[in-house]
């Protein structure tokens, strides 16, 4: 299945892109997607501490199971305001 990965802020800078697709086997979790994304991005990157994940705009744990076509956002520490 195909997942859209979105990276933001310092994470996007590290990976060299903000938006890309990964191919994953059915039943893959957020953690699997992150592992794959770390190698698929233009630059290899390591996750910052306190990384959060959201599937289709809702926060999820790293064990959440992905579905085909999901948008997975990897969210470094937020700092709005």
């Amino acid at each position, binding site marked *: 299945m195909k997942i859209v990965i979105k990276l*933001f802020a*310092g994470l996007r800078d590290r990976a060299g892109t903000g938006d890309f697709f990964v191919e994953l086997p059915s039943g893959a979790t957020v953690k699997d997607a992150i592992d794959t994304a770390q190698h698929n991005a233009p630059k290899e990157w390591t996750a*910052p501490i306190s990384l959060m994940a959201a599937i289709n705009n809702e926060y999820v744990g790293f064990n959440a199971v992905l579905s085909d076509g999901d948008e997975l956002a990897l969210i470094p520490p*937020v700092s709005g305001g």
Partner: protein
Amino acid sequence: MIIITEQPLDPKVLTGAVREDTDGAVITFEGITRNHNDGRGVEYLEYEAYRPMADEKLQELIDEIKDRWEIDKVAVAHRIGRVDIGELSLVIAVSAAHRRPAFEATLHFVDRLKEVVPIWKKEYFEGGEVWIGDPGSERTTA
């Protein structure tokens, strides 16, 4: 009212949006770009939002404080892109019949915004830049 915009923020728009004849109190919070942070000079900030998730989370926070406190209306505006020193990055206006719940709800809103709303701030300080909360992102331009 939820606004995420690259344009300068006008507190009057938000305050006006929440004020009703039944309200005895309106709190307006303004978050401003300070000229210093962590002991060093700041030149300007740059904000980035993940939309539409940021809009959705702001709406959830509005619902959350309305559930929890006796308040009337809430309006919030967050600026994105470059924000210079002394400019507003965030404005929240909350109206209520009585002042205490309005104060508590507004403070809680800002606290929670900084925890869950996917908006990021990059600080351009003298000699470098860093995404706030992500020290590994710091780069010096010396």
